[in-house]
């Protein structure tokens, strides 16, 4: 069985006990992203304190990979500047494109913390978009929140 390489215990833990789940106020932007090939959905809100992500709250339905991914992302981005969080998102994208190359996972381990456990997903092309959906939603919501914020420039 190769299943364990994808379904790491850390992933299953996040799936069963998601961190930060639920939609909360206040927030500056809310987005709804879907995965049209399988019907996975996430609604995600971003609350900024200046340039820092003060909270990410979400509701969603989907497979274990998509749901665990948003939970692991919550741990990684809350309390960090938007630019840092999005840079982490780029690293996660790199991991998803690694086709299971252990060297890539090793290099990104410190940066991605629990999210490095998704390395196994990168071997299954059909599942990569499941893992990426929440990060795409975060990128979208952050951009909207920055645009909406009084200090965030021209709205």
């Amino acid at each position, binding site marked *: *069985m*190769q*299943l364990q390489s*994808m*379904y790491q215990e850390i992933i*299953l833990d996040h799936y069963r006990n998601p961190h930060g789940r639920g939609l909360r106020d206040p927030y500056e932007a809310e987005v709804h992203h879907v995965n049209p*090939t*399988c*019907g*996975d*959905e996430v609604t995600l809100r971003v609350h900024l304190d200046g340039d820092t992500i003060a909270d990410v709250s979400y509701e969603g*339905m*989907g*497979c*274990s*990979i998509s749901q665990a991914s948003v939970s692991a992302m919550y741990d990684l981005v809350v309390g960090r500047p938007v630019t840092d969080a999005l840079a982490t998102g780029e690293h996660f994208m790199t991991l998803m494109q690694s086709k299971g190359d252990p060297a890539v996972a090793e290099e990104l381990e410190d940066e991605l913390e629990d999210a490095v456990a998704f390395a196994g997903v990168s071997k*299954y092309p059909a*599942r990569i978009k*499941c893992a990426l959906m929440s990060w795409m939603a975060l990128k979208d919501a952050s951009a909207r929140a920055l645009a909406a914020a009084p200090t965030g420039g021209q709205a």
Partner: protein
Amino acid sequence: MTSTVSRPAAGAQKQPLPLDVEAIRADFPILSRTVRDGRRLVYLDSGATSQKPRSVLDAERDFYENHNAAPHRGAHQLAEEATGLYEAARATIAGFIGAAVEEVVFTRNTTDAVNTVAYALSNAATAKEPSFRRYAVGQGDEIVVTEMEHHANLVPWQQLCERTGATLRWLGLTDDGRLDLSDLSTVVNERTKLVAVTQQSNILGTINPLEPIVARAREVGALVLVDGAQSVPHQPVDVTALGADFLVFSGHKMLGPTGVGVLWGRYEVLDALPPFLTGGSMIEVVRMEGSTFMPPPQRFEAGVPMTAQVVGLGAAVEYLQALGMANVQAHEEALTAYALEQLQAIPGVTVIGPPDTVARGGAVSFTVEGIHPHDVGQVLDDLGIAVRVGHHCAWPVVRRYGVPATTRATFYVHTGYDDVDALVEGVRAAQRFFGVTPEEATA
């Protein structure tokens, strides 16, 4: 026990199968390969696309190696042979559905066939020739579909309505996965121009009663288009008995190649429709000022056609005819009965669709409590079992039954009880893997 509608397994009923599964499997080269670390391929995704027997592959190869030319063009020997093979395949396919040869139009697939009709109906409104305006759809007209349709038989009609100002209406579903015909006489009314309905649901497996729908459409003078993508490959279908105006289906779901599908239309109706795609092959006379078009079926076959694929589909039809479509249907029904019984005996498994084989084909969709269909599919894949997961291009159906997605197994001529047993064991393995095994298997 959970709250599923599962019934006790009545001692694993295995009716003798009408088809010789081992002999048939030997005809399908792909079934001899292994997947995921050497496992036997258990292919339960024929509803998405079917595998191809060697005779189909040979027919395509023979066409390219020995006869390749553009049909209906040129006077050389190869062009004659290519034309002969192309038209012979048309005759074979027409015979398969009890149609006249000139009523069979080759399209890319079912989706293309539906769009050909949908665009013809809106093009009719602006056609220069009065003879093409007979079936024009416009403001005040209504198109009727059902909530059970594949997106291919839904979105083109939504788009037709948006283009023309017509209104889309639909027949709903009952809780047990059947069409709700209680309001048929109001939904299909004097304003209805066309009723589009699937003969067999790709997700629920339901075989629909078309007679009352066709009869009601006749009463009000509406056209009827039947989506046969999931019926023509799996049961005898005769267009005369059907009584509809159009039947659409795909070659790749019936052992044939990708890239070829069929639009059957009653000649009188086809002849009154303007073309959708225009260009070469479909014209009669072309002048700089304007053009006239060929009669059907050529009017709807613009450009050099998918000749090798049509020839391949002809070979696929001959393969199915040799097995006998009544046998194919009985074979799948026996497998479906067994699969329904076995799956519904698993605590936590809920079948989405009719729970028995009454008016039902070999598409079995189900959910497993506590495990998302994607994850079920992943475990099955790890065991070499190919199923479809997701909304199956019928998003309104899964929404209707309150589930985000399902796992779907579909059967065909090479499917045996061993495949169903592998599926059932795979579902149990998924429950063990994700630790959601209700009672029993925890022991």
